[in-house]
């Protein structure tokens, strides 16, 4: 699109522009080059108008020639349009000697122009430093890919050995060769290596390397691989996703003059994925023959040393014994060396640490296993050698590593610490385990947790049921308290019984009218409460009528009336009845209340 607009503008302006003389120039970036080296040749045609002729050249003697494409430049100054067309070529020197480029010439509209001849010296290989990879211009990648026999970039993966023992280190090298610059950082995917434990070996190395006479910038990554199983294993392909600039020749670039193209990202070509070939590794098991007892499984080239952090120590004070395993291999999984310590010291494992180094692209380091030793008594203690059996893959045999014996001088323990405040602060000078339990209570058998028993959860429903029943009763009681008439009716029998009890207590008080008072009250209050009438203000006849109206039989009502009248006589007439007569009256009253209770349905 941009090219079309340019051409229209050029056409419009060219009609009004005066004619300019045609010019042709030839330029090279160097005049001396080694065999296999490159010379950049530019042929520049300039003049008025848009139809400047293209230049075709054949390969000069002693060189292979490849076109790098064409670029066009237009300038308008004071209404005059000038166009220049630059054809770029790369010439690859084939043989040693002195060669002449040109003169080159073109003919346009009857006018012939030519350049001067240029002499280039081709010297023996290696006489000149390889050039930096070229700026990722539009043509660079395309020419390299389309015409040059050497690719612009490729990847390669190698291992230092195809056959190894299990756990033996293998070095994997990945290299990315490039002779063009990329428009963005490549995306690298490391190889899949099932059956290996992998450690990367930084840093990435960059250097130049000639491949078939072509210089490449090489980026190199290294890994240490440790096979964890035996058999034929495969290191999968590593891949690299790269992106170069577009190679469209019409995509001329006015910014190239500044040496850096801010729009390079807008003209990227399609991404490419480069993959290495899978690599087969045969992993051999460690030999059974000659395998010592107590072999640790450690494979590599190691050495073992031991040291104490102090040579003299008080009794019952700690001293640290460090067992140091150093060398090249997988130290992370290295086991602790074996040591039989004398009975005069108590020992406790104090852990281990690994200090590893990847200097020189080799995985090396040391594993330090520490033990805290507490000598029990004063004297000289000899720490015997620690041992560790390893397999040396280079020698192909098992080795028993051993440390030297160490001597530890144990002096008697000093006195306890004295407090600065004066007096003696009592502090334990050692700590030991509390004694064992010897009572048979230690033998009791624990029960499973309550919350793990179903009975626990089922039992929780019992309080809930009781709660619901109590809640219902409580609510009923509260409702009863709010209805006085109903409460009196329900409580009538209880009140009557209480009055009868009081009457019985006053049974033999001859001069006392309380017997008759309580007896009359028991009957009249019972009837009033059952009928919902006032105990005081209701005339006796109304009370008896109401009883009849509620279906109480006439004979019961008559009995009631008879008893009440008898009570009246007893209260108001002098003398009163004998105790036996009173008892009879009390019995009749009780029978009457029972009969009324039956009628009221209580």
């Amino acid at each position, binding site marked *: 699109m941009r090219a079309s607009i340019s051409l229209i503008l050029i056409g419009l302006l060219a009609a009004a522009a005066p004619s300019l003389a045609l010019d042709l120039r030839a330029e090279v970036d160097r005049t001396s080059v080694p065999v296999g080296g490159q010379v950049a040749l530019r042929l520049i045609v300039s003049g008025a108008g848009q139809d400047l002729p293209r230049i075709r050249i054949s390969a000069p003697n002693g060189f292979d020639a490849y076109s790098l494409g064409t670029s066009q430049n237009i300038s308008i100054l004071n209404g005059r349009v000038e166009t220049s067309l630059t054809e770029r070529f790369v010439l690859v020197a084939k043989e040693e000697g002195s060669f002449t480029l040109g003169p080159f010439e073109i003919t346009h509209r009857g006018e012939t122009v030519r350049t001067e001849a240029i002499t280039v010296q081709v010297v023996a290989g290696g006489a000149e430093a390889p050039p930096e990879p070229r700026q990722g211009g539009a043509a660079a990648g395309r020419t390299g890919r389309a015409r040059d026999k050497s690719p612009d970039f490729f990847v390669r993966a190698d291992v230092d050995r195809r056959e190894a023992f299990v756990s033996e280190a293998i070095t994997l090298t990945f290299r990315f060769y490039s002779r063009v610059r990329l428009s963005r950082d490549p995306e690298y995917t490391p190889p899949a290596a*099932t*059956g290996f434990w992998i450690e990367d070996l930084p840093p990435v190395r960059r250097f130049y390397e000639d491949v078939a006479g072509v210089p490449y910038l090489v980026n190199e990554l290294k890994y240490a691989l440790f096979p964890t199983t035996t058999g034929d294993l495969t290191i999968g392909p590593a891949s690299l996703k790269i992106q170069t600039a577009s190679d469209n020749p019409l995509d001329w670039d006015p910014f190239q003059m500044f040496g850096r193209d801010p729009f390079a990202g807008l003209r990227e070509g399609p991404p490419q994925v480069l993959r290495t070939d899978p690599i087969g590794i045969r992993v051999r098991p460690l030999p059974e023959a000659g395998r010592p007892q107590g072999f640790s499984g450690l494979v590599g080239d190691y050495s073992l040393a031991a040291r104490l952090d102090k040579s003299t120590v008080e009794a019952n004070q700690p001293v640290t014994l460090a067992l140091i395993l150093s060398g090249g291999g997988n130290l992370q999984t290295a086991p602790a060396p074996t040591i039989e310590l004398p009975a005069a010291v108590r020992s406790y494992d104090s*852990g281990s640490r690994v200090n590893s180094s990847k200097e020189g692209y080799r995985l090396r380091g040391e594993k330090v296993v520490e033990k805290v030793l507490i000598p029990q008594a004063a004297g000289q203690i000899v720490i015997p050698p620690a041992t560790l059996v390893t397999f040396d893959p280079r020698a192909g045999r098992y080795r028993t590593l051993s440390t030297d014996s160490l001597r530890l001088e144990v002096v008697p323990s000093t006195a306890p610490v004295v407090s600065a405040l004066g007096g003696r602060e009592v502090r334990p000078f050692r700590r030991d385990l509390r004694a064992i339990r010897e009572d048979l209570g*230690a033998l009791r058998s*624990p029960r499973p947790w309550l919350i793990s*028993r179903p009975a626990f959860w089922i039992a929780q429903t019992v309080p809930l049921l009781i709660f619901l029943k109590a809640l219902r009763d*409580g609510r009923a009681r509260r409702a009863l308290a709010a209805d006085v008439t109903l409460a009196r009716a329900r409580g009538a029998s209880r009140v009557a019984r209480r009055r009868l009890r009081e009457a019985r207590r006053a049974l033999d008080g001859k001069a006392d009218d309380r017997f008759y008072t309580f007896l009359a009250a028991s009957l009249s209050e019972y009837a009033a409460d059952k009928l919902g009438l006032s105990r005081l203000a209701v005339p006796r006849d109304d009370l008896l009528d109401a009883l009849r109206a509620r279906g109480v039989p006439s004979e019961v009502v008559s009995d009631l009336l008879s008893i009440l009248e008898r009570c009246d006589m007893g209260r108001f007439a002098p003398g009163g009845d004998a105790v036996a007569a009173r008892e009879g009256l009390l019995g009749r009253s009780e029978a009457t209340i029972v009969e009324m209770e039956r009628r009221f349905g209580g």
Partner: protein
Amino acid sequence: MVRGLVAGCALVLLVNVAPGPRAAQGQPAPVPSGSAPGGVDDAVDLFERGNGAYRTGDFAAAAAAYEALRDRGLSGPGLLYNLGNAHLKRGELGRAVASYERALLLAPRDHEIRENLALARELCADRPSTGVAAPALVLSRAARRLTPDEWAIALDAAYVLFLATFIAPFHLPLRRSLVRRARLAVTLLLAIAAAALLIWHTGYRPGRRGVVISPEITVRSGPGTGYLGEFTLHPGSVVRIEESREDWVKIVYPPSLRGWTEAEGIEPL
């Protein structure tokens, strides 16, 4: 009615503290009886032989006798404590810590178990990195002051009292504000007991934790030796067990180091 409520609740507590089935969840069997092999006399004899071996310094024999008793289901806190002592004396730090931890689950306020466990922990090569969530640690320690059964009884009592706060006003002349305060208090107790039981269940139920017993275990990013080792642990380190897959277990070392290791290096608690 109040009498009924009290009687019912007493019945509930009685049911709860009564001996239950021991076979559930792999719990130990009842104490064997009789003088035949496997009986009480035999167990007592084995216990005394273990104690005698310990006193004479034959810690391996003592540990074997205690282990035999434990295999018979006699895994009380006292026996586990003795077993921890025997293991520690013979240098089996991981198994010692495992025994003390088991004993502490049964008797969380036993000072001697705590002291010996603290001593064993000092010998452990690994230290949890800083950054353990302090509130979680405080809650966990508070929950472990009582056993799960003690918390269950507290939960029961709080539950009954909570219900009683609704019934009591029907029967007793109580001020409403007093009832409200009492209900709030028992609700709080109920919540604390429930939270403590939840902590026990999620963090300390059998098989939820484990102790490193191998001299060194490599914790990897996945369940297999093809995965990269990320860190190592040493005997006595207590880990949380999150998942098991064949011969591998996924563990968490506090506060948040996670990975897989071979199950044989971990003794589940």
